[in-house]
Structures are given as structure tokens and as C-alpha cells.
């Protein structure tokens, strides 16, 4: 986004078309984080007192955070989530990069139908798929194991990555690869030395998306995992900090905040690449 004033634009017009919308946008985006933060450091007494302003904290406390880290398995959940997200993202990216490359570059009988089928598998809702998958997982002896998630997340991550990457690979001119092959590269070398480096923004976008999806995934984690020490953050926090109809808002919010911060950091870290990955285009 350019911060330069457009020709003929007055400052007051700029205030209305640019600064105010921008401020509203930022406010809406950041408010949940603010709410999570203040809720997690309020005492229960303050939290449930309706006569004071809910936006202020009078008496900050770290009790909820201590409870979360000392009295629950939150650290274990966070570690599980990270482990599962990394492993399934890795698998999906590997398959997605190869599949996306093949479907965008190689013409083989049925390649079009194949890519359409991949898209259709992506459309199968997890709420249907978890039923047969449960059977598969217990057959494989993976019930209540983190591996069950590592193997089931790719069912939606791989099609997703392939589709995103087909589009990205198509923006890379074919001539680059052809030129490399004339220059002396094998097909594989042309792919690894020319196409992949140029596809890094696309691969990063696919990776971030896949990571986020598996980090937040709820349904499979809820169904496949039962022991507290195997749970992921979304399932662990909601499962252990909501007892019946009692919500432990302080630790819940602390867990939610702690769970969303890594994603936010990854986003802001890769945002440059990420945006160019979404818009495609390698300029010659």
C-alpha cells in the first residue's frame, strides 16, 4: 500500500477514505486480542463485577496464567499442537509441491480429470469423513495417538496445497524451465534449481495456510484423542477448562491468547512473501 497522497486528494478526503477506515479495520482486528489479554489478567471478582467498566483492569493478576501452566497440561498440549502441525504441514507441502508441479506442467492422460477429483476430495466435509477415518485409525492402532492427526490432516491439507500450488506454478513461465533444460539441466534439476526457488512465495503461503489449519483443527483432534496428555490446544483448553457449564474464563483466554500468538508471529514474519504468494506472478 502506498502512503503517497494521490494527485488532487485533499487531507480531509484522505482522512475519510483512508485513515478512518484503516483505524476501524485495525480496531476490529485487534480487539479480540485485547479482550483475551485483559480477561486473562483480571481477578475473578473483577471479571464478574458488572458495575465496573469491562475495558479496564484495576488489579492485574497472573493467577490464571499460573493455573494454566502449572495445574493443567497446557505446555504438553502446546507441544502436541506444534508437533502435529509441523509434521502434517511437512507431509502436505511435500505432496502438494510435487502434485502441483506435475498437474501444472506434465500432460498425462487424465491429468485434467485428476485435478478436478483432487478438488472434489477437498470438498468432502470432515464431519462426514471422521466416521470412516475413526475406523481406519483404530485398525492402524493409532487411536488416541498424535500420529492419527498427522495422518488425517493431510486429507484436507494435501488437496488444498496442490490447488494453491497448481495456480502458482502456472504463473512461472514455462520458457524458464525449457531454457534450463537446453542449458543442460535434467527435468528434475530444472524443477529444483529454477521452478522451486521461484515458487517459494507460493510454497510459503501454502505452508502457512496448512500450518494454521492444522493448528486450529478441532473436529479430528476431538474425536481421535482421548487422554489429556495427547490433546492439542483447541481440544485441551475447551475440554479441560470448561467443566459442564462452568467456564474458567481467565485460563481459557490465557490459553487462547497463547495459542494464537505463534500464528500471528508467523504471519507478520512472512507477510511480504505471503502477500506476493497470494497474488502470484513472477516478473521476468
Amino acid at each position, binding site marked *: 500500500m502506498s502512503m503517497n497522497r494521490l494527485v488532487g486528494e485533499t487531507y480531509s478526503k484522505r482522512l475519510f477514505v483512508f485513515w478512518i477506515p484503516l483505524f476501524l479495520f485495525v480496531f476490529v482486528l485487534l480487539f479480540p486480542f485485547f479482550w483475551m489479554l485483559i480477561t486473562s489478567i483480571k481477578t475473578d471478582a473483577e471479571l464478574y463485577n458488572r458495575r465496573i467498566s469491562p475495558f479496564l483492569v484495576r488489579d492485574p493478576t497472573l493467577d490464571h496464567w499460573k493455573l494454566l501452566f502449572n495445574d493443567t497440561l497446557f505446555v504438553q498440549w502446546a507441544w502436541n499442537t506444534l508437533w502435529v502441525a509441523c509434521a502434517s504441514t511437512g507431509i502436505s507441502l511435500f505432496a502438494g509441491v510435487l502434485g502441483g508441479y506435475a498437474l501444472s506442467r506434465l500432460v498425462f492422460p487424465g491429468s485434467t480429470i485428476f485435478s478436478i477429483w483432487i478438488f472434489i476430495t477437498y470438498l468432502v466435509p470432515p464431519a462426514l469423513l471422521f466416521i470412516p477415518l475413526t475406523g481406519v485409525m483404530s485398525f492402524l492402532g493409532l487411536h488416541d495417538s498424535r500420529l492419527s492427526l498427522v495422518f488425517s490432516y493431510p486429507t484436507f491439507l494435501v488437496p488444498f496445497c496442490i490447488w494453491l500450488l497448481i495456480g502458482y506454478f502456472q504463473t512461472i*513461465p514455462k*520458457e*524458464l524451465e*525449457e*531454457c534450463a*533444460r*537446453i542449458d543442460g539441466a535434467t527435468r528434475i534439476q530444472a524443477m529444483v534449481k529454477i521452478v522451486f526457488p521461484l515458487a517459494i512465495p507460493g510454497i510459503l503461503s501454502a505452508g502457512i495456510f496448512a500450518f494454521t489449519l492444522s493448528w486450529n483443527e478441532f473436529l479430528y483432534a476431538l474425536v481421535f484423542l482421548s487422554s489429556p496428555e495427547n490433546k492439542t490446544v483447541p481440544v485441551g483448553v475447551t475440554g479441560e477448562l470448561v467443566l459442564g457449564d462452568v467456564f474458567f474464563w481467565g485460563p481459557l483466554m490465557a490459553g487462547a491468547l497463547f495459542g494464537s500468538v505463534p500464528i500471528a508471529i508467523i504471519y507478520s514474519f512472512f507477510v511480504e512473501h505471503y502477500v506476493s504468494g497470494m497474488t502470484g506472478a513472477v516478473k521476468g
Partner: protein
Amino acid sequence: MAEILLKDLYKTYGETPAVRGIDLTIAENEFVVLVGPSGCGKTTTLRMIAGLEHITAGDIFIGDRLINDVPPRDRNIAMVFQNYALYPHMTVYENMSFGLRLRKVQKGEIDIRVKEAAEILNIEELLERRPKQLSGGQRQRVAMGRAIVRNPQAFLFDEPLSNLDAKLRVQMRTEIKRIHQRVKTTVVYVTHDQVEAMSLADRIVVMNNGIIEQVGPPQEMYDNPKTRFVAGFIGSPAMNFVPCKLTTNGDGLSIKLTDGVDLKVPGEREKRYRPHVDRDLILGIRPEHLTECRQHTNEQQQDFGCDVSVLEPMGIDTMVFMEIANVEVCARAAPDAVKNPGETMTFTIDMQKMHLIDPSTDTVL
């Protein structure tokens, strides 16, 4: 540095034929230009030589080696693409050395060869830049440098100048010719611009509709086209085609245009045309051989009058458009001799340079 031999080459994409039987021998160190209208199969032919396209039928030899099924990297050729295809993530130096690094050439050797090519192309200061930081002309040079460095058996160019502006194109054209004189190699060059073809080629190959119409040195293509297509394609502005009838005129022959103009056929051509007497033919005459009436320098020049309809001054000459026998005809006249539109002007036609075309076969008689 090797001969290239194309033998009865065919290529079809699904049902559509792109190349329909090409026979061509390209000699060692020869600069051959494939030229023809859009879609005539030039790129397809080049890509088959490069190995980027499967051959439907026929054979390609480079040197003595049959390379039909040899992958591109083992053909020892280099190609310059229309959009240059520079690797965006590498510097100019890395772009130029890419092929050598893949072939595991020693670092010192690579350095020498890249520097040498950079010197030939005048791009020594650009070696650390990335393609994005180069102008169109500079990218063009880098793309050629990348080809030169490899010291291949043949260079393939696919319309390398078509993305440049007019002035730079003329400049790079001369540059390419200069480089070819310095780096002696076989070159196959594709363009749809006949001026480029004329100025660069040792031999021109005119293609149309997937077949070769005619092969020959530029001057010969200009002087003696064999088909109507070549006659109309080579030369700018294009040759005029006027319907006519060949008749006897006493002992000699003459060409009658439908609106009554009568042109005497030069004596030495009479024998050639005699079998076609009384047929409807097409007279082909280039604008430069149809000029304002001056003092005759040879007796084969014949005059006739015509009304000028449009003028296009080019500086050195003025193109004069008029109507002869219901066909728009272009003549090339000296600016001071030109009359205004609507006025009648006398033209001279140089009968030594005219062609007669058989409309039923479109061949030049």
C-alpha cells in the same frame, strides 16, 4: 559448428498439423532465417530442433548424429527465447554460468568464459545485477551471452528482437550480425519480419502453412521469387499484383492490363512466356520498379498515365497509390516528381524486373 539436417519433418498437435514435411540442410556456420506469417510453424520447427517438442515424423541430425530422441540438454545447442527467459532469481553472472556449472566446468574456466562473452556483448558492468534491474536491450544481450558462453554447436533464436522498440531492434540486429561474424556458429533464427530476415540471413527459408515455400540467399529471394507467396512476402512495401492477359503483338509478346494499358514483354523473356499466350495471368511488380517517368535509361521501360489517389511521403521517396485495372497499386516516386491526389501522373514500369504469375498454381513463370 555443425551441420543441421531436417528430413521430412512433421508435427501435428492432436488433429491440427503445424509442420507438414520440411526438408532443409543448414550448413556449418551458416546463418539461416526462418520467416513466414504468424502460425506457419516457425516456432514449432525451432522447438523440434531444440528438443522441446516431440517429432511426429521425420528425422533431425546435428552433425552426423540422429537426435530425434536425444533430450535437449544433450543436443549441445543454445536457444534465445522471445521473452529472454532469464532466471529472475540469479544475477547476470549466475545466469550466464548456469549451463557451465551444471556441466561441472571448473570455476576458473567459467570465469574466463563469462568475462569473455560479457566483453563481446558489452555487459561487463551488469554482471552482478538481476534481470529485473536491466532494460529490454540489456536483457537481450544477457540472453545472448548465456548462449555464447556455452560455446554450443548451434544457436537457435525465436523472434529475439520482437520485444524491443523499433530503434533498438535495428541496433541489436546489427549487433547480432557482428556477433555472428565474431563467434562463428550455425544459427537458426526465427522471425516474422522480412526486413530482419533479409538483413541477417545467409539464407532465408520462407515458410507458409507448415511447409517451405522457398529457400535461398536474400538477394535471390528478392530477385527471383518462385511463388506468389514469396513474391508478396519478401520486399517492403509488398509487390503489386495486377490481373493481366498475355497476348501476341506482331513478332513479340505483350501484356494487356484489363483497363487497356499495353506493356511489351522484353525480348529475352519471350521464349519463357510463349507457352502461356492468351492466358489470364497476374503481373507482379514491386513499387520500386514502378516510378515517375524520367529519361529512359533502357528501352525496356514503358510509360503509362494514371490518376494519383493517395500519397505517403517517406522522406527519401514518396509512396504513390493509384488504381490500375481496379486494383490498388503502390509506386515509389521521387518526392519532387509527385503530383497531387486526383491529378494524372505518368509512370514508368521496368519490364526487366516484372514477374508473371500463374493464378491457377500461384507459381512464378
